[in-house]
């Protein structure tokens, strides 16, 4: 790790002003569970001049329902999300996703905002400086994507363009299935975008001087079955090879509403819209679910070593709906 200026931010407004001032040379530190490993590994070519501590911003750790709309602040801890009776009642997909993250100790430090904004895990991208890195690649602004010809067993099977690193966040997948919106604050105020539009192949929707302040989830009407299923090499403490979240309403065996989100298969979270179409209005049985699973993966274009992820994703989609 190198030296940097450390600033405790008091408010969102101040944070954005600082981000503006440092013009790309400052980073936010929430729980630090991801940031510190990037600062230590020094795998990027630029090193931040300043680290802005956001933990000192008060009032950004809420988990509340307001008029049926769920609101979670960027500084809410994942451990609080796992424990929250409110979330357990109506937003089980998010609880399951948060619970699948890392370890209890890490969840005690990790925040909602940090989980959504964490950097990708591509092993070429994260190659530590002091053992021969940093490695140049397209995401870092020069050279080709090394994963295309290299070992891409954990990379994207769809939606990749130039960079094939997948979005590692578990909670993002659940939030997309819950149709969440993400609130972004900048010097000029706040804006809201759909969670699903937050990620792009080379990063996310944040501008240099913006930060995430929270997420909102629209009112859930009627009973909804929710799941988050995660497949990883090792069950505890490991990033998803595939994550699938489902939110589904079934009345008398018939699916009246459904949203399915796929994680760790693409640079962002993927909504399986065609599969949702297929299921909506249908009696749920093995056949229709298998058909939906096929459709969810219809757009998959696996790389040389990751076709197995397609099969695993299909299975998870089926299980997320049937079980």
């Amino acid at each position: 790790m190198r030296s940097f200026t450390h600033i405790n931010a008091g408010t969102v407004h101040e944070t954005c002003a600082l981000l503006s001032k440092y013009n790309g040379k400052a980073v936010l530190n929430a729980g630090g569970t991801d940031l510190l490993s990037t600062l230590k590994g020094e795998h990027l070519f630029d090193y931040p001049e300043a680290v802005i501590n956001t933990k000192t911003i008060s009032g950004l750790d809420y988990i509340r329902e307001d008029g049926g709309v769920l609101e979670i602040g960027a500084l809410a801890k994942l451990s609080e999300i796992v424990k929250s009776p409110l979330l357990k009642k109506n937003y089980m997909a998010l609880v399951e996703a948060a619970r699948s993250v890392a370890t209890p100790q890490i969840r005690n430090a990790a925040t909602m905002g940090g989980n959504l904004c964490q950097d990708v895990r591509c092993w070429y991208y994260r190659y530590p400086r002091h053992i021969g890195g940093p490695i140049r690649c397209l995401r870092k602004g020069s050279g080709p994507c090394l994963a295309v010809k290299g070992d891409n067993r954990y990379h994207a099977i769809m939606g990749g363009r130039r960079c094939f690193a997948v979005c590692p966040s578990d909670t993002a997948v659940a939030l997309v299935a819950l149709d969440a919106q993400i609130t972004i604050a900048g010097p000029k105020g706040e804006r809201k975008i759909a969670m699903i539009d937050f990620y792009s192949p080379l990063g996310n929707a944040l501008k240099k001087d913006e930060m995430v302040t929270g997420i909102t989830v629209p009112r859930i009407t009627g009973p909804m079955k929710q799941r988050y299923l995660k497949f990883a090499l090792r069950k505890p403490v490991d990033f998803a090879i595939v994550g699938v979240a489902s939110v589904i309403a079934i009345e008398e065996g018939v699916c009246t509403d459904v949203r399915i989100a796929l994680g760790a298969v693409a640079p962002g979270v993927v909504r399986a819209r065609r599969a949702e179409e297929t299921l909506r209005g249908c009696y749920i049985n093995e056949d229709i679910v298998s058909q939906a699973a096929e459709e969810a993966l219809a757009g998959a274009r696996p790389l040389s070593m990751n076709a197995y992820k397609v099969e695993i994703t299909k299975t998870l989609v089926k299980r997320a709906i049937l079980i």
Partner: protein
Amino acid sequence: MHSEKYLLGKTIPRFDAVTKVTGRERYAADYYGDDFLWAGVKRAGIPHARLKGIDIAIAKNIPGVVAVLTHEDVKGTNRYGIIRKDEPVLADSKIHHCGDAVALVLAEDKEALRCAIESITFDYELLPGVFDPEEALKETAIKVHEDSPEGNIIRYVPVETGTPESAFNECDTVIEAVFEVSRQEHAYLETEAGWAYFDKTGQLVIVVATQTPFRDRFEIAPALGLDMEKIRLIVPYLGGAFGGKDGITLQCLLGLAALHSGGRPVKMWWGREESFLASVKRLPARMYYRLGAKNDGTLHALECRLYFDGGAYASLGGEVMTLAAEHAGSAYRIPHVSIKGWCVYTNNPIGGPFRGFGVPQVTAAMEQMVDILALKIRMDPLEIRRKNIVRQGDTNCVGVTLTHSTGAEECLRVLSEHPLWRGKDTWKKSAAPFKTRGVGIACMAHAMGYPPIVPDVANAKIELTEEGKIRVYAGVVDMGQGNASTYLQMAGEILSQDITGMELVLPDTERTLPSGSSSASRTTYTYGNALIKAANTLKMRIFEKILPLIQGSDVNEFILAPDRVIHPPTGKEVSLKEASRFFSESERVCTDTFIMPVVEGMNDVIYMGPHLIYSYGAHLVYVEIDRLTGEAEVKDYLAVTDAGRVINPQVFEQQIQGAIAQGLGYALYEDYMVDEGVHLTPDLATYIIPTSMDIPEMTSIPVETFEESGPFGMKGAGEIAMSGPLPAVANAIYDACGIRIPRSPFTAEKILKALCKLSAIIFAFFISKG
């Protein structure tokens, strides 16, 4: 008070338990002092290059930097290596793998150290590398070490018994298969650390985490141009090693740093990534097997070719492969055998010792072969093993007659009567939808000690202190396995002392006696035997000394009890402290030596000669496969072990459980991947090892044969269980769904691919049948 078994066979808390769990125990990394300097290394980061120049100018001028050293500052040979001196302290002419040390920096603080290391650049000509052992053997292959007389061959080992050539013609069934096993990283909790300084007498003192303090001096001295007698190594408890600290890690670098520190102590402590990058690994291997048997299942002929990737330096890679060759036939009688093994240089990470020392690799292959054969001739996997398993008096695959305790068959018997074996069919039938269950077994053997050409010697030292305490000087390192505590238990047994009241001196080349390495499943056997002799001498000496005091007539009338000697005929007691007053300084200390017995006159059978005494095991595993994701989950595990008598059941079980966990990691996820020099799994986020949550219920049953030559009848228990999990899991996966994966670990990805292929074949079969 005194009974035959005072402490023996009992679970008593380890001597190191309390100090470790309370954080009071000082490991090598815990040494700090006034005015010390940090030492750190610039690593090559490229796998193969000619080194043309090193630019340290900027580094030298960074405030806080005290010295920047390159190979030009190394006054000795700048080479070390246990068998072959091929490894530089600091790279000079060439870079052979990414972990090579190019320059050494000494600085006041870590920040200056980091900046200096970062600023060092070197000029090089990149050379094409060689990354596959079979490729490396080709005539045209790039040479890793141009001056190596045999090109890329580190060691070639042939073994032949009987007449294998013609024997295959006498077989009713012959099967062939190829197996590959991954490179495994030890991932010990304690990364490499040490502390060094020159004391007032001009002696270089190194406090370091090593398994081999005495041998290290022979390596450090010539490499740095120092006098061996003037190097002292002190070795605290290690936070794990598993073979990864068997030899030089940072000792030479620390010594070099101390030579340039202006008299200040130096400290070095590798981070996780540096440890992964620079340390030795379990050698990956490709193994070609051919096995022939009679119709009744009698194994008749075995042929194998073993290719072990030794990486950039010899280390003990050649010896690892040799032990593999010796164990290539696992625990069976096979009269006709031809084994050829190659350990080969590549530009990959260095291959070296790792718990099992080559045996897990070949056991993985052989135990799968046995199952493949059993299936082919329609025999039960347990039956075929029982039929061929070695018994005392048999001749093993390399022609050694097994005259010592041989409990392999007993292990199989215990396994066959266990509820997990008996209940396996019921368990298999009750799988949930889309899950299939399988049960696998594997046998294993593990030789104890060094091969005959390297005398396996331990020198024990025990003292009655002035305070009347019994103090044991352990010359062998305790890397976490608890051997030091077992020494106290053994001495306590003989001298009827509780171990909490005893004292322990950990290895220190100045205070303890040379006793060899902490490795080869020898540690407790060899040192324990020496210690028993020394403790018995001390006991008699105590009795002799107080005989006149009590006015007794016969030393045999005395008995010992905690802190005192009792003379039952008179009822008199003398405290050990009082007894101690009758000892002169030199009389207080008793020493003795033990040399492990070896096979005589067969040294030409295999490089370094074959082993005489073995531990054995039979393992059983329950595995459940998710047919749709390919995930293999281990549900239950049974390990039956013959490691002779058990001195401390808990310490024994910890060894078995630890080896199973490490073995399951090896079977299911651990694969240290390097793609043409790029370490794809350089940290614990990418190199996945099992956590406690991934480990199934484990049952360990010792069969406790009595090894006549062993201390209290024991044999080595540290490595034996490492070889079982991989083949047992492989056999269980086959049992569950009919697939064999040629290259371990058995990740979901590979299982799923194989399952898809299998269903495609079955589908095609049905289509073709119409």
